[in-house]
């Protein structure tokens, strides 16, 4: 026990990759190793990058890595793409945008599939952060899957959430409807050469202006960028460091840490409960009970109530 953790603390990337895979398949061996590593962490600064499919998240991360490296900071990335709910397979295509850093030992990119998680991350994303943090990476970036209107798990896990939008993705109503607007610490209108980008940025600034002050008193910058041309990225970096500095104040940091721990705990509990439920439904439901529902002599409501009773 602890041999993987020891190797990881010594900087062994192979061991780190292995433990992330073990965490993804939720083996109990992983738990003990992660427990050790968690105690060594707490130093890395965490950045989340989210936004709709194809908005340019990976391209932006690639540009951010270059700039963070230029400042001498080491960077680890957990990049999440969706699993097929049918086959469990996935095509993980974020890393291909970041290959120019492939030879840089100060950069580690790990692609992860959602494996059934619905919040835009995977259940093991928090574990990947734990591992990178323990390895001593200065910055950990998490890229979510392409989000729609409700995948907001990223908020709990990171202290600076960058939300990418483009003027290509629908109108103003969609921008305000999307719950993901509430989660941004920094907003970036990417692909700014697309028509309507300035208008979009103006609209976002106005909507933000009308909102009540946030509890952490942070004002959300709205920036324009062309990630593929590396335009506007210095401003994004400045805004990010502004946010990280802001978080340094004790009261903010303790709130963030609490939120992070809660998010991690929720992700872990979620898996356990789903597994338990599956086992209950598959194993403990008596065939007669099923039959009764199928023949409409009783409903799924009472059956569900009985299952929940066993969970309590």
């Amino acid at each position, binding site marked *: 026990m602890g041999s993987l953790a020891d190797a990881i603390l010594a900087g062994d990337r*192979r061991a780190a990759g292995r433990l992330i895979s073990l965490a993804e398949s939720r083996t109990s061996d992983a738990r003990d190793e992660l427990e050790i590593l968690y105690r060594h962490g707490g130093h890395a600064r965490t950045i989340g990058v989210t936004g709709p499919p194809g908005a340019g998240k990976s391209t932006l991360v690639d540009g951010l890595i270059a700039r963070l490296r230029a400042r001498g900071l080491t960077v680890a990335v957990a990049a999440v793409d969706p*699993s097929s709910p049918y086959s469990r397979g996935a095509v993980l295509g974020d890393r291909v945008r970041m290959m120019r850093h492939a030879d840089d030992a100060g950069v*580690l990119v790990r692609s992860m599939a959602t494996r059934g998680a619905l919040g835009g991350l995977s259940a093991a994303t928090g574990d990947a952060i734990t591992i990178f943090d323990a390895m001593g990476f200065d910055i950990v970036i998490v890229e979510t899957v392409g989000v729609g209107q409700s995948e907001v798990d990223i908020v709990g896990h990171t202290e600076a959430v960058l939300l990418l939008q483009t003027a290509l993705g629908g109108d103003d109503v969609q921008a305000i409807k999307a719950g993901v607007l509430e989660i941004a610490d920094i907003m970036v209108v990417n692909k700014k050469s697309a028509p309507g980008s300035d208008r979009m940025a103006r609209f976002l600034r106005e909507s933000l202006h009308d909102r009540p002050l946030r509890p952490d008193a942070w004002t959300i910058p709205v920036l324009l960028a062309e990630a593929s041309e590396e335009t506007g990225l210095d401003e994004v970096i400045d805004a990010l460091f502004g946010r990280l500095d802001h978080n340094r104040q004790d009261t903010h940091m303790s709130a963030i840490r609490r939120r992070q721990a809660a998010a991690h705990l929720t992700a872990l509990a979620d898996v356990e409960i789903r597994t338990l439920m599956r086992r209950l439904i598959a194993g403990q439901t008596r065939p007669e009970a099923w039959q009764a529902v199928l023949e409409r002599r009783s409903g799924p409501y009472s059956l569900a109530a009985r299952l929940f009773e066993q969970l309590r």
Partner: protein
Amino acid sequence: MQTDFQAEQAEDQPIVRCLLGMLGTDVHSKGIRTIAQLLREAGVEVIYLGEHNSVQGMARAAIDEDADLVGLSFSSAAYVEYTRQLVAEMKRIGADDIPVMLGGIIHPDDHQALYDMGVRGIFGAGSKTADIIAFVRSMGRPR
């Protein structure tokens, strides 16, 4: 939040992680995109690296991504040399236990030399999809 994602699959069956990409100046990526898609549908996690990868970048990716195997697709004649370089680099960084699979236009005369280098599977033009999938699946390690 979780869905009932794994309900229909045996939970102890490992998900295979397969790195897929092209080295050097090869530019025929339609083939590997098709394979990537097929493997996804067969339940494999494909880490898609596209074209123009360096030997070093590919080898390092195999480690950082904890790949169960590395799949290379070739469309140019330089595949023997590229494969030799990749195998050597993987050995240098301690990743030589990760199996390598080749696809694309590979001449039968070269098969033995490639196998001798340590290549585990060769799927040239005309290979059956089912064979590729079966091979990739068989590379999963117990978790």
